[in-house]
């Protein structure tokens, strides 16, 4: 095999050896096991080799003599189709069909790489290389067996042929145990509370080197709409979800939560043993739970105990109606991140003859999965702990649990199973019911299943924080933007602490306040720009317990900052009297962006004209129509959205009637799954634009049911039209999230088009729209 050297100059040669020491049971017999090797580089902490590297259990990929292929990844299926994409990417490199691959996902004791599950790009890049290294090894084996050079071989669907003979992959590895070690870098998971997230990184291990990969022009599997493997089980009831785990002797627990986010326990309500004979109450500091072998008894007893439990009252929150005021009053220091040329931008703006300034904002919102957090933990007296979870970061959670229980990370195993979509709240491995379950299992010595209620989930899980952004730009004589300055203000958004640990006073990861600049710049013709991001701690962070914890949510940071940027571009276009699509084309030379803008505009039958519509008005019972656009570049993907809305000024009701969404995400792996992701993302984006707002008073979250925290229903969904551009020469791009970020600024622009009034805050609820239409001076068309 060719010796290659990566950019840092060390040898990264994969090695293929026969392993005599592994005993395999059953009929599997021989196989090719692809395992990991940290290159011998001195002075790099990441060089620690996991003790179990030589075990076949942590192999990344196995080609077995029965021709089955097993792929193990620490990444998981979060609903966006990763299980299909990963199988396709690796099947392509191996020249097999994806159906021949079994994916084992997320279990920390049997997957090698770790990492967070929304990261398609890093996950797919790894698997592509794993497949490519393995393919080269298989070719080498075949060339030996057939006594021909590798160049004489041809491969179709896992069958290698040359000189009139053919062998299936399984035959090449028959009765042998071959160990292919491939080079990786990265840090094995460790407990580091000061990292802010309890683990060393989000990407897990990274495969090194540059094995020959298949040219995109020869792709047969990637680019086709293969089905997502888990769907049949999910629609027939055969899937085992994380809520379905039942262990012998397991206790069901329901938590009794404090009255407010900073309450401390005064006294626990009495448990009526005559009514609830097998229930028990467990308390540790402010963590209170009722447990029973019978789930309904646990539910009923917890309600009874909760009603008589006394807590101190705490009022460290400003109330959601005062959020903006609180952000404004905060004494901000230096920005936590800054990008651009401050002096040039400030000078240019000071001397500009024409500027536009605006402030945009959004309240707190929730990830709000349909299934509240649930977890099972089995913590034994010897310190071993097994946790069943649906976290999007199994290794991160493993570190969190080890930290909280004060046990070595080697003693903690996290098993992953399907559950309701989390939309980013478990990216860092924290939050959730896993902490409650582990603590209660450690205290009782029995396996414990903790099921949160919806009310509890909306009140006690982390939230996506509200924000305010000030943005200013200068315009030239044509009305084009020449200079732009933005300052984004928000709150702690990477708080991965586990609620149970906080309440029980046990060790937690430490969160670092701060925020980041998430925009990827689309407008290369705007030469001068300065972006600043400021982050403050959690609201009520002075409380003895939690305050309002903030965590990232789908398209984090960019969703918010893109709303401000795109809204300002729409306002500037209107000021300049230029069609908003034309206006964007005037500010970019990026051909991929230009192409997706044109393709989407065509699909929406866009007729150029400036906004607002000549018939725009702010009163009346007749519905008005408007349309608006927004773009975004994210993770090698180019997005363009066109919203069409109907506004009824009299009632303040805004309906999105149609949304056209265009996407160029490089080489499309699976068009149908991508279409599903795009259409679903629009639903979440429209929901955020029109409905979602977390309400809290001085002490607690009060929007704790679906009637108080409203999300979009089927009847409110617009017609959605999808445009996809696939490119063979641009690699893979992120397409599973992102759609939600394109919707709000396009919808706000469409509202302006209909009414002539700028909507600088979301959600566009009837109450807010009514205030807006009555209050703001009209914009002349």
């Amino acid at each position, binding site marked *: 095999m060719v010796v290659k050297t990566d950019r840092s100059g060390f040898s990264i040669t994969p090695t293929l050896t026969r392993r005599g020491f592994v005993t395999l049971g059953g009929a599997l017999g021989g196989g090719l096991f692809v395992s990991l090797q940290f290159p011998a580089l001195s002075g790099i902490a990441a060089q620690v080799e996991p003790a179990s590297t030589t075990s076949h259990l942590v192999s990344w990929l196995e080609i077995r003599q029965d021709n089955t292929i097993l792929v193990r990844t620490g990444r998981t299926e979060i609903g*966006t189709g990763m299980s299909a994409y990963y199988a396709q990417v690796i099947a392509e490199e191996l020249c097999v069909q994806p159906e021949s691959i079994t994916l084992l996902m997320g279990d920390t004791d049997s997957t090698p790489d770790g990492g967070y599950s929304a990261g398609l790009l890093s996950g797919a890049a790894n698997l592509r290389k794993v497949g490519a290294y393995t393919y080269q090894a298989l070719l080498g084996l075949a060339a030996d067996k057939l006594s021909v050079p590798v160049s004489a071989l041809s491969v179709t669907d896992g069958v290698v042929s040359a000189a009139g003979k053919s062998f299936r992959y399984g035959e090449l590895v028959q009765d042998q145990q071959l160990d292919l070690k491939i080079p990786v870098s990265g840090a094995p998971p460790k407990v580091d509370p000061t990292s802010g997230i309890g683990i060393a990184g989000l990407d897990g291990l990274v495969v090194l080197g540059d094995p020959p990969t298949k040219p995109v022009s020869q792709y047969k599997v990637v680019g086709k709409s293969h089905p997502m493997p888990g769907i049949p089980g999910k629609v027939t*009831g055969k899937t085992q979800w994380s809520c379905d785990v039942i262990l012998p002797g397991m206790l069901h627990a329901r938590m009794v939560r404090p009255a407010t986010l900073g309450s401390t326990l005064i006294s626990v309500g009495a448990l009526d043993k005559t009514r609830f004979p097998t229930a028990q109450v467990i308390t540790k500091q402010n963590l209170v739970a009722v447990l029973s072998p019978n789930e309904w008894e646990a539910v009923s007893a917890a309600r009874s105990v909760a009603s008589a439990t006394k807590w101190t009252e705490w009022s460290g929150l400003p109330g959601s109606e005062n959020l903006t005021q609180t952000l404004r009053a905060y004494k901000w220091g230096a920005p936590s991140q800054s990008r651009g040329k401050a002096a040039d931008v400030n000078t240019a703006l000071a001397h500009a003859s024409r500027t536009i300034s605006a402030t945009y904002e959004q309240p707190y919102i929730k990830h709000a999965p349909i299934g509240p957090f649930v977890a099972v933990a089995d913590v034994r007296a010897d310190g071993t702990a097994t946790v069943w979870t649906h976290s999007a970061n199994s290794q991160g959670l493993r570190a969190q649990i080890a930290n909280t229980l004060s046990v070595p990370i080697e003693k903690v195993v996290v098993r992953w199973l399907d559950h309701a979509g989390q939309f980013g709240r478990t990216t860092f491995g924290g939050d959730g019911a896993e902490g409650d379950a582990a603590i209660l299992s450690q205290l009782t010595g029995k396996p414990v299943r903790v099921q949160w209620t919806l009310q509890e989930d909306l009140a006690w899980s982390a939230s996506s924080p509200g924000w305010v952004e000030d943005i200013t730009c200068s315009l030239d004589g044509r009305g084009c933007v020449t200079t732009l300055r933005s300052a984004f203000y928000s709150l702690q958004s990477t708080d991965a602490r586990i609620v149970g640990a906080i309440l029980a006073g046990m060790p937690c990861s430490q969160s670092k306040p701060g925020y980041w600049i998430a925009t990827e710049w689309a407008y290369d013709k705007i030469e001068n720009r300065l972006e600043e991001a400021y982050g403050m701690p959690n609201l009520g962070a002075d409380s003895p317990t939690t305050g309002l914890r903030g965590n990232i949510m789908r398209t984090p940071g960019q969703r918010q900052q893109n709303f401000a940027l795109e809204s300002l571009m729409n306002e500037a276009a209107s000021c300049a009297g230029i069609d908003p699509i034309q206006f964007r084309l005037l500010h970019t030379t990026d051909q991929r962006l230009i192409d997706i803008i044109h393709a989407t505009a065509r699909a929406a039958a866009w007729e150029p004209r400036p906004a607002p519509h000549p018939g725009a008005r702010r009163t009346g019972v007749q519905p008005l129509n408007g349309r608006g656009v927004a773009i975004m570049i994210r993770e090698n993907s180019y997005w363009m959205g066109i919203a069409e809305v109907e506004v009824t000024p009299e009632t303040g009701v805004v309906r999105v009637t149609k949304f056209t969404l265009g996407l160029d995400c490089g080489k499309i792996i699976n068009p149908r799954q991508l279409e599903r992701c795009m259409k679903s993302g629009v639903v979440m984006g429209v929901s955020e634009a029109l409905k979602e707002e977390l309400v809290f008073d001085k002490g607690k979250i009060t929007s704790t049911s679906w009637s108080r925290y409203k*999300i979009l229903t089927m009847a409110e969904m617009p017609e959605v039209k999808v445009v996809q551009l696939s490119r063979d020469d641009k690699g893979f791009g992120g397409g599973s999230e992102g759609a939600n970020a394109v919707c709000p600024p396009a919808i706000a622009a469409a509202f302006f088009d209909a009414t002539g009034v700028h909507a600088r805050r979301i959600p566009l609820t009837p109450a807010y729209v009514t205030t807006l239409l009555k209050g703001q001076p009209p914009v002349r068309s």
Partner: protein
Amino acid sequence: MADQLALSVNGASHLVSASPDTPLLYVLRNELKLSGPRMGCGIAQCGACAVLVDGAEVRSCIAPLSSVAGKQVTTIEGLAQVWAQKKGLGETEAASTLHPVQQAWIDEQVPQCGYCQSGMIIAAVELLDRNQNPTLPEIKDAFTNKPPSPHLCRCGTYAAIIDAVQLAAKTMNA
């Protein structure tokens, strides 16, 4: 407090030991090990726990066990059997045939996470039972305005669900 109660689920009779106020969902999941219906909101606001009781959709998270005594309960695990009986399929064919609504959910690749889809499928079966050719507004109405609450999907698969309902209607009428 625990009584012995007779229950008919997916065509089979069961004697369960539970207090009569226990919501059906807990009995299906914990006693009968049917994990199709799922705990969502627990207050009949989302639809994840939906099952059919004598053919009508019921939110099992709030329906007390006593309310289903003597009635036929169907979960997604029992839909294939319902279809096989309706069409009079032979044993072999029945074993390899899903309910057309489930098949449509696969063919149209509906799930994102899939957590709500059990309830969505139940709602679709009920809808297609009373309306063999629902229009788009009728589908949207059934999943949104029928009491006690809309069927909610946080991943946003509504468009895929509509596609699948329309496909299922076509197969069932074929």
